[in-house]
């Protein structure tokens, strides 16, 4: 891991076009500003990991259990409407 010391308002440039700036240092933490092109995503690590984990879980489904689950859902979905001809 590359460790660099920055003071407030100083920054680092990653890969030539991503900039991370230290905007504020308080007792509650360090505020970082990030300037990056649109295709680059930035997430808090714990959020990233939680969602990546949820994605992984959604990618490991067995076909049979999906069909059982789908049948369960359909049983609860609104059915075809029957109306009276008065």
């Amino acid at each position, binding site marked *: 891991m590359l460790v660099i010391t920055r003071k407030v308002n100083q920054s680092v440039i990653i890969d030539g076009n991503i900039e991370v700036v230290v905007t504020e240092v308080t007792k509650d933490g360090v505020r970082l500003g990030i300037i990056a092109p*649109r*295709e*680059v*995503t930035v*997430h808090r690590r714990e*959020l*990233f*990991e*939680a*969602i*990546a*984990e*949820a*994605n*992984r*879980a*959604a*990618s490991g*489904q067995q076909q049979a*259990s*999906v*069909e*059982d*689950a*789908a*049948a*369960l*859902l*359909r049983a*609860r*979905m609104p*059915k*075809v*409407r*029957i*109306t*009276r*001809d008065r």
Partner: protein
Amino acid sequence: MAQDSILLTFPQGLLGFSDLTTFHLFEPKGGYPLKFLQAADKPEISFVCMDVAAIKIDYEVTLGDADANLLGLERQEDAMVLALVVVPENPRGMTANLAGPLVINVKTQVGVQVVLDASKFPLQYPVFGPQDEVVLAFPRGLIGFPDLKSFRLFEPAGSYPIKFLQAVEQEEISFTCIDAGAIKSDYTFPLEEEDAAFLALEKPQDALVLAMVVIPEDPRRMTANLAGPLVINVHTRSGCQVALNPEEYPLKYPFIQEG
């Protein structure tokens, strides 16, 4: 395990088959949405039918007095509506008769074939929609899967309403997901300006929001990830995964409500 079948009585028979008044309805496992209606007295006569609810249209059946009295339906939930299906040589050309649905009272196990206006309801409605292969572009990939930038969206009838998002570059990777609106009608979240611009989303109606679904061993405990929705622009077919605060949006929303 023997297939479950229920015995149904059609006091008036079916159109053109007024003498067939008793049937076994089979629902082979994994065969959704097709079922078989076999005449009890003449087992060589069997009709293929399907749950009309599997055809994703707004279908409404109006019952006249005679049919309503025959069925004695007390509640909407007691009704099952099936459409007879014609299966040609190429099964992909299967059509359903939506002008003559079979309306069944599952409580009394009595059914009637209702005649609807054939000028308003198709006699030969294609069961398989056009083979529109929907390929979605995810320029940023998915969270944790940054290299998967292209997906096919599959909606096999047997899994409806669950959909599959299959990675084009790595076909063994497929995510189960569902239309978020189908599981939580009041699900809303703010979309960052940059994300909306990234997807060229001008109005909410242009967006399809999918939630990843996890199905554990007990399918009743399935959950949806409402903290990481996939937002897709239905016109441009490009999408991205949005990360929301898990303290406000559940990562594991149990959407099967008991009861």
